[in-house]
């Protein structure tokens, strides 16, 4: 069984592909259908950010285990312009492009763990984790 998928994100349609593959990978781990929707939605948000701000990047999806717990790790990586003020980007309603500004803070609320590292001129890396209950 494959427990890791790397999805290249270059275009609009890759956003749909990434969230589909995330759902497929997470399905056998024991998530509820709501949690699968949470995961797919969070992937959609971070994948869209890659297309919109960096143009291209990758999303790594990996099944993880910690003791009895099983979960999904999602790492969205790009070498785009980076985010100058991460704290501000994580605030509801903040956006530098014409979106809702809900993307990153929304994704954080949907997941159990969320971490973002960004450097201007270097790129952005968002790691998210969701554990099956």
């Amino acid at each position, binding site marked *: 069984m494959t427990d890791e998928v790397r999805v290249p994100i270059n275009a609009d349609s890759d956003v749909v592909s990434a969230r589909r593959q995330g*759902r497929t990978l997470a399905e056998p781990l024991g998530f509820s259908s709501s949690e699968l929707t949470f995961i797919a939605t969070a992937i959609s948000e971070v994948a869209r950010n890659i297309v919109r701000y960096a143009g291209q990047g990758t999303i790594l999806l990996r099944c993880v285990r910690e003791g009895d717990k099983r979960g999904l790790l999602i790492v969205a990586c790009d070498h785009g312009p980076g985010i100058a003020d991460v704290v501000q980007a994580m605030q*509801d309603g903040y956006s530098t492009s014409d979106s809702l500004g809900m993307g990153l803070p929304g994704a954080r609320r949907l997941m159990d763990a969320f971490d973002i590292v960004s450097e201007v001129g270097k790129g952005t890396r968002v790691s998210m984790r969701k554990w099956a209950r």
Partner: protein
Amino acid sequence: MQVPILKQGGYLIASIQDALTDDDLAHLQTALVRQVRQFRSRGVIIDVTALDVMDSFASRTLRHIAYMTRLLGAQTVIVGIQPDIAFSMVQLGLTLEGIETALDLEEGLMCLARQGRYNRDR
């Protein structure tokens, strides 16, 4: 994937069949606004039953469609939001405020009919 738009009497019915890309959503917005004008529609129903996720962009686009068609005199009703989708929308903070919603297509049509009667009787 283009969303088919069906003209039924004074209403337009857009039935989303599958997951949509941001481009598909933008096309839907343009097509609906154009057709409301072209067919002098009084109501629009967008059936999102088959949508896999409602993220910030999808929800923003639906809101924009509802506002734009309202400016042209047509009422938009979003129908078929699934329970899991509703759960994730609330968690995300997406509320579709001020937008009419209904359980399914049938309820959506009743909602538009009620609205039509109300406008006529006023």
